[in-house]
């Protein structure tokens, strides 16, 4: 049940030579910093690194904040595993990592329940304390705060495929040979593994049989062979708006929101009506959990920052920080919800958010991710071979 077999804690200890080259991005300097009351280092998805979010905290406390944004969870987790726990103070990744990987591996530390749990009580109903993904496996320690979230299955141009059709046809959109050349795939390989499992007709978040792996191989080849493009969310949205493609795989309010913010409300994230999960669930959702890194010299501002982004105003800012736009758990608080304009609610598809989240299973660890990713990478490469 592990994504990674390495024992990386010894990595830097044994390979100063390698670290010299690989950490040349200036992080070693940060690691050596000693004035930990004057700085805060955040490893996060985009948004938390924006000036709108960071500048008020910088001015209020007169500290230096470095926030580095990455666009996949495994890389961020492995930065900590490779010895950067003495660099970062906060890490913002998707829901399963804190509870299932980072806390058991000693990469993050619990936060004060008495201080932070009252904030969960002001969140949307499904996030009330004790919120599963913010707690450790025993349900005793609070491991982080939930904020941005959203359904994440696929996105369509409703002028080409109606919402009803897209929801009804579901993952079979990619099984229909007539759709070859009409869709794109987001270059988000971890999520593509999940979605190809769904197209193949089984739950991604479990150990897979040989038959399922064979089916995955066949489905991955078919999906990439039929893809018009594999690209980032900006190009995919451009492809939808221009008519190059009609729909794309691995997307949700997170990816559709920039196009909707530009007025293209026909670009819509879809959660299918039927899918391969138990209890009639059909799509997948994500919830970010921001945790305090188990840094031996932790910044005195780490927990303060976590509290700072809970305020209604800052939660709204986080939801609409630069790049992509997302619902936040704090919308359960009327003071926060009232800050959202009708246009902003349209952008994040508030009208269908509750029902879509109800149809989703939450992002989880894929036990045989390594194997499936290798198969998918080969499928993508072979599709390019003509």
């Amino acid at each position, binding site marked *: 049940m592990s*994504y*990674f*077999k*390495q*024992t*990386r804690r*010894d*990595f830097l200890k*044994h*390979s100063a*030579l*390698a670290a*010299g*080259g*690989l950490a*040349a991005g200036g992080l070693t300097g940060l690691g050596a910093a000693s004035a930990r009351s004057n700085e805060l280092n955040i490893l996060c998805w985009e948004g938390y690194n924006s000036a709108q979010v960071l500048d008020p905290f910088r001015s209020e406390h007169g500290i230096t904040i470095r926030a580095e944004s990455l666009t*996949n969870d*495994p*890389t961020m987790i*492995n930065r900590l*595993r*490779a010895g950067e726990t003495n660099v970062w103070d906060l890490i913002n990744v998707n829901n399963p990592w804190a509870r299932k990987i980072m806390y058991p591996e000693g990469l993050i530390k619990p936060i004060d329940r008495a201080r932070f749990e009252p904030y969960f009580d002001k969140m949307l109903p499904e996030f009330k304390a004790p919120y599963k993904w913010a707690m450790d496996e025993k349900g005793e320690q609070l491991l982080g705060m939930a904020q941005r979230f959203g359904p994440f299955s696929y996105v369509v141009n409703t002028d080409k495929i109606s919402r009803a059709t897209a929801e009804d046809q579901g993952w079979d959109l990619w099984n229909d040979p007539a759709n070859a050349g009409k869709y*794109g795939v987001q*270059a988000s*390989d*971890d999520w593509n593994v999940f979605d190809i499992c769904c197209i193949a007709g089984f739950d991604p978040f479990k150990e897979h049989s040989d038959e399922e792996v064979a089916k995955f191989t066949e489905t991955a080849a078919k999906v990439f062979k039929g*893809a*018009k*493009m*594999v*690209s*980032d969310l*900006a*190009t995919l949205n*451009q*492809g939808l708006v*221009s*008519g*190059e493609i009609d729909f794309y795989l691995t997307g949700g309010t997170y990816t559709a929101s920039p196009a909707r913010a530009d007025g293209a409300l026909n670009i819509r994230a879809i959660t299918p009506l039927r899918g391969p999960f138990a209890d009639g669930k059909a799509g997948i959702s994500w919830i970010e959990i921001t945790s305090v890194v188990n840094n031996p010299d932790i910044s005195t501002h780490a927990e303060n920052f976590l509290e700072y982004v809970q305020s209604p105003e800052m939660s709204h800012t986080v939801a609409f920080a630069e790049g992509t736009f997302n619902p936040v758990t704090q919308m359960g608080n009327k003071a926060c919800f009232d800050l959202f304009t009708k246009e902003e609610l349209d952008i994040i598809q508030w009208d269908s958010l509750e029902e879509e989240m109800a149809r989703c299973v939450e992002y989880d660890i894929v036990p045989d991710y*390594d194997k499936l*990713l*290798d198969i998918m*990478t*080969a499928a*993508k*490469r*072979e599709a*390019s*071979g003509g």
Partner: protein
Amino acid sequence: MSILSRLLPPGRRHALPLILFMAVGFAAPLFAVIAYSFVPARTFDLWADWSFDNYLEVFNSTSYIAFGWSLGLAAATVLILALVCYPVAFGLARVFGKWATLITLLFTLPLFVSENVRLYGWIMVFIKNGVLLGTLKSLFGWEPDSIVFTPELTLLGMVYVYLPFMLFPMTLGVSMVPQQTRDAAYDLGASRWQVFREVDLPLSMPGIVIGFLLTFVLAVGAIAEAKVLGGQRIIPIANDIEVAFTYAQNWPLGSALAVLLMLLVGFLVLIVLRRFDLDTILGRR
């Protein structure tokens, strides 16, 4: 004379800071990548049991497709650029006169803009209903098929991005040809073709070869063009290396791919340098 002075004469002693800088900044990362290519897949421990397993995995996979795309596109880019750049280089060195500076500036300006921004600009031009196809549609009612997300557009993007890296060495090469030599050839009755083939081309060869090498080495590691303009319809080897280092967190496999790419490119460059010895054609021996 002390032992230290004998071991480290002044020349070496003064070169020491630079040697140390190069060792830490250039050689160390390279050796780290080479070392990682021998450790077990998906591990980070440099002192684990070393083996050739990562290389075997590469040879047993379909990575040859990605190597093929990278080498093929790089070679095509070099060929197209040679044909495009030589006349421009000739013009800059011999024809454009006072306009040469302005034209050089125009070729240089795009380098000040991020490569990704420039490539996204091309997407806006070529995408369906974009600048080109949208204009054709509105003016003439003609709707040709879009060419974005194709290998051809990837190649166009590479030609566009790497043009200055071929043009400027080539211009230098062409400007190295003495006008007197060309005049002498004409005086002796040579035709324009003969002057080109027997004077211009051989004497400008240093610039041409440097342009070829620079462009090829850069182009073989290209990734953004295939991602943005090609929509990953083709997967260059740099993409496989990136996936190994990110989503797969398989640094050893990524390192093995990188080492193989370095060896392959190094081998090809050596072949070219054996054929065209730069020192000889520069007249140094």
